[in-house]
């Protein structure tokens, strides 16, 4: 009996292969490698030099506003995608809708710019 398979089966196989690749490689390395640790070998790897500071450092506040703006404009891009796919059938009316949407968000962009949120003090 022939049964149509879902188009997502290749995606599943790809994910499984990707996971297996990592797991099997680490497993074989774990089985084969010699185990002779000493303190310098166990210290965190920082491009070969001695670690400069503990790994639990605080991030700078300056990235924060950038990440916030990224999240909000990320959502804006989500709304643009179905519009772009249906651009022809929606016609000029759809264009006006999206123009209004973008203009309102552009006001926010200008506000963030004037407030200095995009500056790297």
């Amino acid at each position, binding site marked *: 009996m022939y049964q149509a398979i*879902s188009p*997502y089966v290749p995606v599943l196989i790809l994910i499984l292969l990707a996971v297996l690749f990592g797991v099997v490689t680490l497993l074989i390395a774990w089985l084969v490698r010699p185990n002779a640790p000493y303190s310098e070998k166990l210290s965190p790897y920082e491009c070969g030099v001695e670690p400069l500071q503990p790994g*639990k450092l*605080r*991030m700078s*506040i300056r*990235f*924060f*506003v950038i*990440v*916030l*703006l*990224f*999240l*909000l404009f*990320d*959502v*804006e891009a*989500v*709304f643009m*995608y*179905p*519009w772009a*796919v*249906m651009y022809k*059938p*929606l016609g000029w009316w*759809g264009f006006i*809708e*999206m123009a*209004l*949407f*973008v203009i*309102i*968000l552009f*006001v*926010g*962009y200008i*506000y*963030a710019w004037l*407030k*200095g*949120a995009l500056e790297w*003090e």
Partner: protein
Amino acid sequence: MSYTEIFFYIFAVLSILFALLTVTRRNAVHAAICLLLTFFFIACNYVLLEAEFLAAVQVLVYAGGVVGLMLYVIMLVRKDEADEVRQSLGQRVIAVFIAILFVLEIAFISLLAYYGNYSGFLSSKMAQIGGNTESIGAVLYTYFLLPFEVVSVLLLAALVGAVVLAKNRIER
């Protein structure tokens, strides 16, 4: 049982497992990683429920944006002694009680729906327009025009609020 159902149940169990881990981890970074995996498995279930566009949005906005922002803020306000304090509020019993009450209430409604004369499968009407994203676009920009425009005002308000909260402190 079809393959779709088997995979739905696998992903459902995995997402519930990671959701449980999210709310029980001590370390906020571990909780955020578990949340990421929960969102990913929920996105897998969206694909199985034929909502491909939403699955993409889920990975893009939640897994990419919201969890990223959370991880960033956790690293920003990291305090080492935060791991040592007692983790739960005094209201754990009340919280469990309210959650169980909610389960019972909605399970009752769900049972009513099951024994009612419910029937329905995915109509082929959506498939006539094209893919999932096309049909969403066709409905979103016609019937949902007002909510769509209101969303831009919501995003503007969130943007202004976030910039005010984040910026004023730096200037001070």
